[in-house]
């Protein structure tokens, strides 16, 4: 049950200690929403391009604000690193209307450190989306979702497992909590871990793994654009009964 206070309510992912926030339903006037989660790796190894990662996140969200579907998007942004403690996830903000997000203010400079709780990040991203989607669906809203997890390395510290993530993804469809769910794992500077990340993608039942190769500012800018276009596609697919067929498996 959500705890009520202010414009955001606190939720817990069923069967776990992971919590998240989402806009109170009294804020939501439309008939349908696409839930978006962007999870960004801020472990020590990303310190060389932390500013570009932040710029990418800001650009992605600013671009979503310009979408004709912007009023039907709810965005959650999280960072992940073992430096954030037990669950390894720090929520910059929960599921919020774009009009309530000011990226320049809400996304302060990153301080990369710690190791990579990748499975926890994906579990938090997927689990929160399924939970909140279920809450929306229960209250007559139509909802679908899209998750982006940007990482430069393989998991080395998580409590969650790929099996737990796969179960959550199945719950989205079987429990009719989300009309569809697209999950995209993006590897940056992660060529050494391509095999592991590919295997994780398969084991966890994620939709796509995209290896972006070596990080450059240009590539991260492209990633921001890819996120925004994919969000737009998934949002336009709502009501069709399935996910967007226009989300590319490459950037």
């Amino acid at each position, binding site marked *: 049950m959500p705890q009520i206070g202010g414009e955001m309510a606190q939720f817990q992912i069923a069967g776990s200690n992971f919590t998240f926030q989402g806009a109170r339903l009294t804020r939501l*006037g*439309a008939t349908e929403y696409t839930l978006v989660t962007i999870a960004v790796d801020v472990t020590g190894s990303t310190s060389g391009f932390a500013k570009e990662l932040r710029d990418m996140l800001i650009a992605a969200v600013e671009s979503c604000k310009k979408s004709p579907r912007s009023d039907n998007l709810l965005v959650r942004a999280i960072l992940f690193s073992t430096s954030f403690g037990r669950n390894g996830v720090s929520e910059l903000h929960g599921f919020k209307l774009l009009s309530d997000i000011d990226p320049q203010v809400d996304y302060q400079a990153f301080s990369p450190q710690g190791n990579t709780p990748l499975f926890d990040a994906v579990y938090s991203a997927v689990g929160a989306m399924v939970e909140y989607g279920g809450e929306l669906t229960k*209250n*007559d*809203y*139509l909802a679908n979702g899209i998750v982006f997890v940007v990482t430069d390395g393989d998991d080395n510290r998580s409590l969650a497992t790929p099996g737990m993530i796969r179960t959550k993804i199945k719950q989205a469809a079987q429990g009719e909590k989300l009309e569809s769910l697209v999950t995209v794992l993006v590897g940056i500077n992660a060529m050494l871990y391509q095999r592991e990340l590919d295997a994780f993608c398969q084991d966890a039942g994620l939709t796509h793994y995209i290896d972006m190769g070596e990080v450059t500012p240009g590539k991260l800018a492209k990633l921001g654009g890819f996120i925004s276009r994919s969000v737009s596609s998934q949002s336009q697919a709502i009501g069709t009964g399935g996910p967007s067929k226009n989300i590319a498996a490459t950037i």
Partner: protein
Amino acid sequence: MLFAVDSYFHIGQAHLNAGKPCQDYALADIHEDMAFALVSDGCSTGGQTDVGARILALSTAKAIREHWSVAHEVEGDAVPLHIAWRQKDRIAGLHSMLGLRKQDMLATCLYQYITPGGGFIHIQGDGVVAVKYQSGLISMCRYDWADNKPFYPAYTEDHFMGFIQDHGGDVRAERLTKECWQYYAEDGFIHLSTQKISLGEGMGRVTIRIYPGELEVTHPEYIAVFSDGITQIDGLDWKDAVVQALAFKTPEGEFAKRRMIRLIKDAQRNGKGPIDDIACAVVRIISSHEEGVV
């Protein structure tokens, strides 16, 4: 006292299969401190009644807004007559300007005109009116014309002569049935009355009054008008359909659209869904207590 409004319309299976457009239309708005909500249902054997229904709805909406801006009161029998006169005026002008025929303008109109000082619901044709109270009680009345020949405002063009002849020529004949029920979750449905209304009475004089002070005393939360499509959902009794249509989960924004979309989706899962086009328009009355919270 504040109001919130919403409306929704959806094509029925019959028209979808026949390649016909949706001939139902719904509209709701807040104008100054008044709220109105209306549905219009085009005759399926008429002409381009999808256009006619929209013209009638928009004409009625404009007439209501103009009336409120000038008069700022809704008491008395003259108000529905005034609105009907403005409808006739606008329909006549527009249909000839657009090259439409009388058959294109055959559409019903059920509208509610609600103000802080009371209001009324006017029934021009057939459909359902329902009120859900803060206690959870729902009152609903269904209006049906004999031989499925409802009254249309467009009949004023020949002073109702054709309509009266179609119904046997006697204005005293009881050709309109009003069937009223009450629903409470603990008690289920209770039949209140079935009333026969004469042809003369049914032609533009079926009005449900909401007297000054009544909103504060009886505490209605939602007032809804539906086209007769609510009575033709496959596998769902009309009374159950009304109860489900008023089971709003959250009252924000497009509250009626969300509920109707879900109702129709569930009905389609369990059967064919709405056979006829369906429209609903709802006024939510926000009590003074909630106003403080809002």
